[in-house]
Every structure is written in C-alpha cells, then in structure tokens.
C-alpha cells in the first residue's frame, strides 16, 4: 500500500476512535435503534416482500415518481457534491491521485446505488430473479447513478441545462415498462455519456469544492467533539451559505434600512420560531371553532378555549417580538464594536416595531372575524400588545439590563391584562 493511503487509513481510524470516545452514548443509542428497526424489518417487512408474486404497477410508479423527484431535488434544487474528500487531502495530494481517489469513491457510490436498486426492485417485484426484476433493477440503478454523475457535473460546471437529460430520463422511466429494450439502450447511452464526461472532460471547480469540503470538515470535527456551541454556529452559517445571487435592492432599503435588514435576518435565521407560532395559532383557532375538539374534557369550557386562543396570539406576538429583539440586540451590540448605526434611538424603536405590530394587528383582525368579539375589545387587545411592543423595544435600547431581569414578569402582566380586558 502506498504511503499516503496508509496515512489516510490511520487518519480514518483515529477519527473514528475519537468519534466513538466523544459520542459513545448517542452512538450506542443509534446502534440499539438500528438493531430494533432492522429486526422489525426482517420480521415484518421481509415476509411481505416474499409474498409479492408479480410486479406491482402501483408501487412501481410510486417508486419511480419518488426517484424522479429525488433526482430533480439533488440536481437542481439542493446541489451538493456526491463525493466527499477531506480538505487536507485536496491540499496535499497531487491532482492525479485526487482523481484516483474520486474514482474509488465513485465505485463505493455505485455499490450503494446497486444495493438500493436491489432493495427497491425487490419491493416492486418481490424476490424473484426473473427478467422483470433485473430490468427494474437496471433501470433504477441507471437513474440513481446517472443522478449522481449529473449532480457532480452540475456542481462543478454550474450548468443547469442538464435539465433536458433529467426530463428525458423521467420520460423514459415512465414509459419503460412498455418499451423495454429501447429505454434500456437510451438509458445506458446517457449513463455512459455522463460517465465519460465526468471522468474525462469535466474540470473540477477546485475553489468551490475546497471551500465546501472545508466547511463540511469543520462541522464534522465539531460533531466528533460534540461541541454544541460550534455546531449551533455552523447551523446558522449553513442556513445562509447557499444564498441565490441577488444583486438588486428595492427602494425600501433606502427608506427603512433597519426593517430591510431585520426582515432578511429573520427570514434567514429566525423564521422557524415565527412559523411555529403561526402553526400554534392555527391549531388553537381550530380548537376554538371546531366542535370536534370540544369533546375533550378540558376543552369543554369556552373560557378555556378562549384562553388558549389568546395564549396562542400572545405566543406569536412573543416569538415575533423575540426575533425582533434579537435583531435589535445584534445591531446595537455590533454598533458598539464599530459597525455604527447613525440612527437615533427613537427612530430605531419606530422602525423595529413595524413588523410585530403588523402581525399583532393582522391577528387581531382574524380574531375579530372568528371569535365575534366586539371591535372595541379587539382594539383594546391590540392596543395593549402594541404598547407592550413599544415598551419592550424601548427598554431594549435604553435599559437592556432591566429587560433581561424583568422581561418574563412584563410578559405575564401584559398577557393577564389582555385576558381580563378583552373577556
């Protein structure tokens, strides 16, 4: 064995050892879970597959549909390299050997595709080594493997015009059960073309690939050491890493720069919280309006349902406000470090209150229609939440320490106030 391969093996062993040392309990849990799932599959799923006597067309087209979607997703939506190589290898090993490594990894990928194809064709056709089984196996394998080759090409050459090949493959997959041999021949032709192109013609986009591999390596190291702080930071970084190029700004930026910044930041980093709040609000709205839920003992009283609804509005309000406060905090903190903001405190508060107030008022209007509350009550509720927003943001700018200590008490007081005054 050549020296560099020996070193790579030693490195892999060390890395695995470190991973096991640092993540022993999660790995053990995973092994136990895998064993349970594997056992269940062998006991329950295997006999079902054995009972399948002929090709099930419904399952067949379902699997094909899923594979077409998967292929589209990895080639045109979330394009990631199919082959992963350590960044250190990219730096220290010469190009010819890197190409050898890529070829070896490709063989590994092909083996995976073969195994996956066997499983899928067994699900469709049962375990019968007949012509149909082999045909389905071949066609699934060709799709999976060509998808891998295509995403490798698209990743490095940044070409999206291969959508034609994907379309052709998808059509072939749909008609393949009817025109057997013709489809296989076309599929093999495309696969061979991609193979020759990827390993003979394609130039690797070294800068992009190295950058991506470095990032993956950072994440892997953080995972190996179970460093949750770093993992959290990388998760944030990953969210904004693959942004689409967009070099246009609306005039909105020049009128309301802080809102522009806040909406981008919340969309990229904090939208999950707001979506969660919205889902909670929808569920509580459903509980309030649909008699189906009222059979549950604790939901029989209207007051409790109303409180839940109000609580969910309050949750959306808090989560939105929390996202805004985080943004405000980040801007103010960075301003003290040198990323100055030449805007007065009052204007900062004014700009930051636009989004939460819009959401609160929107909710208020929905509630007015759903709950049939009087407009005065809704206005009162909205007014309380608007005042709370302004107070919260103002305290964040002026007396941050006070807010850190008393935020929870303030929130409860506002919630109870809204509850008492609106009902």
């Amino acid at each position: 064995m050549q020296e560099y391969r020996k070193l790579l093996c030693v490195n892999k062993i060390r890395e695995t050892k470190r991973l096991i040392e640092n993540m022993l309990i999660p790995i053990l849990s995973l092994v136990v879970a895998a064993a349970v799932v594997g056992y269940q599959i062998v006991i329950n799923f295997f006999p079902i597959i054995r009972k399948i006597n002929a090709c099930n067309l419904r399952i067949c087209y379902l699997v094909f549909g899923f594979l077409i979607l998967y292929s589209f997703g990895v080639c045109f939506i979330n394009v990631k390299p199919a082959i992963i190589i350590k960044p250190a290898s990219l730096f220290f090993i010469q190009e010819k050997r890197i190409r050898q490594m890529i070829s070896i990894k490709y063989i590994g990928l092909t083996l995976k595709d073969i195994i996956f194809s066997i499983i899928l064709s067994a699900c469709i056709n049962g375990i019968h080594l007949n012509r149909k089984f082999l045909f389905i196996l071949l066609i699934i394998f060709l799709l999976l493997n060509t998808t891998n080759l295509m995403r490798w090409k698209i990743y490095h050459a940044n070409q999206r015009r291969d959508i034609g090949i994907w379309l052709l493959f998808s059509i072939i997959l749909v008609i393949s059960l009817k025109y057997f041999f013709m489809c296989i021949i076309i599929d093999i032709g495309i696969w061979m073309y991609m193979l020759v192109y990827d390993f003979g013609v394609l130039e690797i986009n070294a800068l992009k690939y190295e950058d991506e591999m470095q990032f993956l390596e950072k994440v892997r190291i953080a995972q190996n050491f179970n460093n949750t702080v770093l993992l959290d930071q990388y998760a944030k970084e990953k969210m904004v890493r693959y942004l689409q190029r967009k070099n246009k700004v609306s005039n909105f930026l020049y009128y309301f720069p802080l809102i522009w910044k806040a909406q981008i930041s919340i969309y990229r980093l904090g939208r999950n919280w707001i979506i969660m709040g919205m889902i909670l609000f929808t569920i509580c709205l459903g509980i309030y309006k649909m008699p189906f839920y009222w059979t549950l003992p604790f939901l029989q009283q209207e007051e409790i349902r109303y409180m839940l609804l109000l609580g969910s509005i309050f949750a959306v309000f808090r989560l939105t406000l929390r996202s805004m406060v985080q943004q405000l905090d980040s801007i103010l903190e960075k301003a003290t470090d040198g990323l100055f903001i030449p805007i007065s405190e009052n204007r900062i508060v004014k700009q930051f209150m636009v989004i939460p107030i819009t959401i609160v008022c929107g909710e208020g209007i929905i509630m007015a229609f759903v709950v049939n509350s009087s407009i005065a009550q809704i206005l009162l509720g909205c007014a309380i939440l608007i005042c709370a927003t302004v107070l919260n943001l103002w305290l964040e700018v002026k007396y941050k320490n006070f807010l850190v200590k008393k935020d929870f008490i303030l929130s409860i007081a506002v919630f109870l106030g809204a509850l008492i005054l609106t009902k």
Partner: protein
Amino acid sequence: MYVNVENVNFAYDKKPILHDINFGMNKGEITGLIGPNGAGKSTMLKLMIKKMKPNNGKIIIGDNDIFSIKRENNPVTFIPDIPVYYEELTVWEHLQFIKALYPENSVTVDSLIREFNLNQHLNKIPSALSKGTLQKLMIALALLRQYDVLLADEPFNGLDPAQTYKLKNTLKNLKKQDKTILISTHLLSLAEDFCDRYIFLYDGRIVEQGTKTEILQKQQMNKETSLEQIYMSLIGEGEHYAGVQKTVMCE
C-alpha cells in the same frame, strides 16, 4: 487640534491599562499609534469609539465630548482589528445596507467593489471569506460612512502587497480631503511611509509623540534613524544603539 485626548485613564477590572494619555490630532493629518502588544493601543481606540468609557479624562472631537455626541451625528468611522459583521448578510448586502445608512457620502458601492476587488465575493457571507478579503470588507464598510475621523486598528493585517499599496493611497487621499486619521499598527516601515505624526505607547503610557523630526530632536538622534530604531530605543531594547546614534550626532 480637531481631536483632543485629555488626561485619559482607564482600568479594567481594577488593573490600570492606560495612564494619563494626552494627545491631539489635526485635520488632514495621519497619526500612527505605535507600541508593542499589550501597550494599550486597541484599548485607546475602543475608548475613542465609545465601546468603553474612560475612568477619567476627556476625548473631544471638534468641540464636543464624544460621549455627548448623538449616534446619528457620530463623526467617527472605524476599521476594527477583529472583524465585526452581520453573520446572515452577504458582502453585497453589507455594502448596500451601510450605504443606505449613509446616503450623503459620495463614495459609491460600485467604486469600492472595484477598488478592493470584491466582485467575486459579493454573494458570500463574511464567515466564508478569507482573512484578507474580510479585512477589505471592513475597510470598505468604514469608507462608506460619513465621517471626519477615521480610526483603524491594524488595517494592513492580512492584506496582500497590492491591497496594502491601494490602502496607503486611499489614506493619503483621505488626508487631502481633510480627514483626521489615527492608525494603530505594528508595521513601522509602512507607518513611516505615510504617517505625519507618531504616538509611541508603552505599558499604557505615552513615551513619546510628535513628528519624526521632533522625536529625533528630543531623542537626540540623527536624521537617518528609522522609525524602527526609534521604537527599539524607546522601549528600551535599543539603548546601546541609541547611544551610538547620540555619539555620532555629537561628533
């Protein structure tokens, strides 16, 4: 003097960092803040950007104490030593955001992108940039602001020779525009190229300040003495050398 630092003292966690700092800077002048690691250079700059408050003493810009100047009238821009950026915004969005905050500044985003070769990196987030490119972004952001005083903490860190040359030229142009510039640096030969005045900081104290000629006269050194040699002499590591220089001068 446009900027005046008067009797500034600062202690962190009861440990004194800066003692009786007094200096001034004129408009259209580049001042080099020079000193070894831990001398208090970065702390001085942090006081000047209001990151921290001095225990006593005043920092005056124009006629106002900096702590009485409102954030919307802040005449200072800053190139930090440790990059400060928004993690979620791309390079291009950073530039546009800062430009939107300072529309009155005539410097355009496009001109800065060209000047600092940022074109290839516009769609990247700052954490994906190399050290040099990140430094270029910090400089570009600082130049996009409306300011009278430019403070820079090790601005040449990570820059390649071409970018160093460009930054030097930019600083010289800013000087012509009557900006007041204070640069903290370790690169003495670079500082010697474009600084008008020097402040030598050692162990939290100013050990010498003035133009190079004034310092040479005070230290009784000859005209050919480089800034590096002055520095070594001032921090006490070049006593023998300084002695030789003084002898030469007497002769």
